[in-house]
């Protein structure tokens, strides 16, 4: 296993800037997820680490050695593609042995190694089948097997679960987590699915328009988003955002006014004062908003329920408020009818204040 470091990396296609002056350090043995919406440059970044895309500017290091201009095969990385990219004319064994065969390894040694990997991934009964005869999950395991057999320093995954159905995705997610626990190899995983990133990674790098929006542990990103983009991208259902204005700032607390003549005092995280404009947005996750009696003193903002979704273990209540629609997450036993007037109580310590530039205050 090896660390991966990118220093001041940029990628341009003609005049289009895809990655801009990006710095990233992935510690050896860690599981790092590159998370972001489509087109944010996460796959390009992964392909630059793999050596499949040339780096326009900057340097890349794997295990402390510069690999900026090193061919992909010599970087000691293995990649699992979204499409799996299993060679259709070869059997599972042929696919797993392909890299060893190219390297001229003796047939017996190839088979021995392939059998070890097959045992680890439970591929033994499938070794003589062709990719077309395998299910999605089996193909995925073969793709991982093909990567494993190379004994790489770094595993690169490019949205490997996105072609699987929901149930299989959960199963494969667990298998990947177990694989990382067993191998302890550095893994870099590209996904646009925040659940995958949150459950698998010990470090998440959120990308937005070719720049790192925030990097940290899953809970850091969830509990302390650095900006509105991260706050909105992480968490399902998404965070509620309410337009507000700053009334007064007192040290690390700030009093904000919402539409409908309501206000609350919040704890700020950084400067404590809005930059430039006092137009703010208050973000609060659905589970940090509670339904209370509208006339209660605990009420932060009043509203009327519109839709109630009961999922068994949890209930989502959609509420129209003077500041806009909000989602409230209650427990599974919550009983409330659409059209009910309710009061919403915010947990002040869990609310985030974002300035006009989108950065957390």
């Amino acid at each position, binding site marked *: 296993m090896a660390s991966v470091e990118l220093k001041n990396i940029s990628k341009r296609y003609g005049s289009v800037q895809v990655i801009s002056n990006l710095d990233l350090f992935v510690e050896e043995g860690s599981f790092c997820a590159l998370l972001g919406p489509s087109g944010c440059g996460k796959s390009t970044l992964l392909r630059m680490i793999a050596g499949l895309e040339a780096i326009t500017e900057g340097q890349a290091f794997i295990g402390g050695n510069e690999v900026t201009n090193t061919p992909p*095969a010599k970087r000691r990385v293995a990649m699992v593609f979204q499409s799996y990219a299993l060679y259709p004319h070869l059997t599972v064994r042929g696919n797993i042995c392909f890299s060893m065969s190219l390297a001229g390894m003796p047939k017996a040694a190839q088979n021995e190694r392939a059998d070890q990997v097959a045992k680890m991934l439970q591929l033994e009964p499938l070794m003589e089948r062709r990719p077309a005869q395998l299910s999605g999950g089996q193909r995925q395991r073969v793709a991982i097997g093909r990567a494993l057999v190379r004994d790489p320093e770094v595993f690169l995954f490019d949205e490997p679960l996105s072609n699987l159905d929901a149930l299989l995705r959960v199963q494969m997610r667990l298998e990947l987590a177990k694989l990382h626990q067993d191998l302890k190899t550095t893994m870099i995983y590209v996904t646009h699915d925040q659940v995958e990133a949150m459950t698998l990674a010990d470090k998440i790098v959120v990308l937005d328009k070719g720049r790192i929006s925030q990097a940290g542990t899953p809970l850091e990103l969830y509990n302390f988003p650095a900006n509105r983009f991260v706050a909105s991208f992480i968490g399902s259902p998404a965070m509620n955002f309410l337009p507000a204005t700053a009334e007064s700032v007192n040290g690390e607390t700030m009093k904000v006014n919402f539409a409908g003549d309501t206000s609350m005092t919040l704890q700020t995280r950084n400067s404590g004062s809005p930059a430039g404009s006092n137009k703010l947005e208050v973000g609060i996750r659905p589970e940090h908003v509670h339904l209370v009696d509208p006339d209660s003193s605990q009420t932060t903002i009043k509203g009327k329920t519109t839709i109630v979704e009961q999922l068994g273990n949890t209930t989502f209540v959609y509420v129209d408020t003077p500041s806009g629609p909000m989602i409230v997450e209650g427990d599974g036993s919550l009983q409330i009818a659409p059209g009910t007037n309710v009061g919403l109580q915010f947990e002040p310590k869990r609310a985030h204040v974002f300035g006009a530039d989108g950065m957390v205050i």
Partner: protein
Amino acid sequence: MSALTLDDRAAGAHVAVADPSNWNRIKQLDRIGLFITVMTVVVAVFWAFPIYWALVTSFKPEQDVVRPGIELWPERFTFEAYTFTLFQTKIGIWYLNSIVTSLVVTFLVITMSAAAGYAISQLEFPGRKLLWWLILASFMIPIPALIVNHFVLMSQFKLINTWAGVILPQLIAPVTVMIYKQFFDSVPKDFREAAVIDGATELQLLFRLYLPMNWGITTALSIIAFIGAWNQFLWPFLVTTSENMFNVTVGITQVTDAFGVKYARQLATAILAGLPVALIYLIFQRKVTQAIMLTAGIKG
């Protein structure tokens, strides 16, 4: 509920058939179908008649061949034309020449076209587009237009009456390059990238990934290249003057004697010349059809 639906459908079908306008439509379609079938059979007979005529003539004695009138079935059967061709000509050497030159042409055309198609499809190098346009442009020049140049060139290289002289000008196959490029273009780039990460060189990518993944097209193109090379007449006829270097197609011209053209012998030789190709066609019928469709620009 489902039974009701089935009943409804059955009732609907019954109504549809019972409707007189539908009956008329079906009858009209039947008549059109019958007409098309008859026309196809007529065209097939028309097309096959020369082959039948050649076959029948080759079993006639020479005197009967030149007799006036149309004789659709031989009055007298004889194998004289075949025994003459097989035992009194150099058809064995002609076959050998045809086999060697056709196999070498096929192998080289396929290998070079695959490599060229791969390079144009997958590699980045200066002049790639120009090269592609040149190949496309060369497709528009009929090979017979170059035949004098080829002859002069082969003569200067002292390759007249050699296998190399027969083979070299036949290696110009822009269509094969175009088909390979088209197929290699359609291979998803993930395969290439996975193999590159696995450590494949460009040659390994071509021979261990792109060609095996397009094995069907290689088989089809090989068959059509072989048939094309086997049936070549004009160029081997020009470039070979020694009877020992003739291809079997050129050999057909050699079965005359001092008394002039011998039709039965010529047709017997022609049938013997076409026999291997006919056998190949029968064995690989589907692949040949696929290849013809490909060269006509229809991706099968």
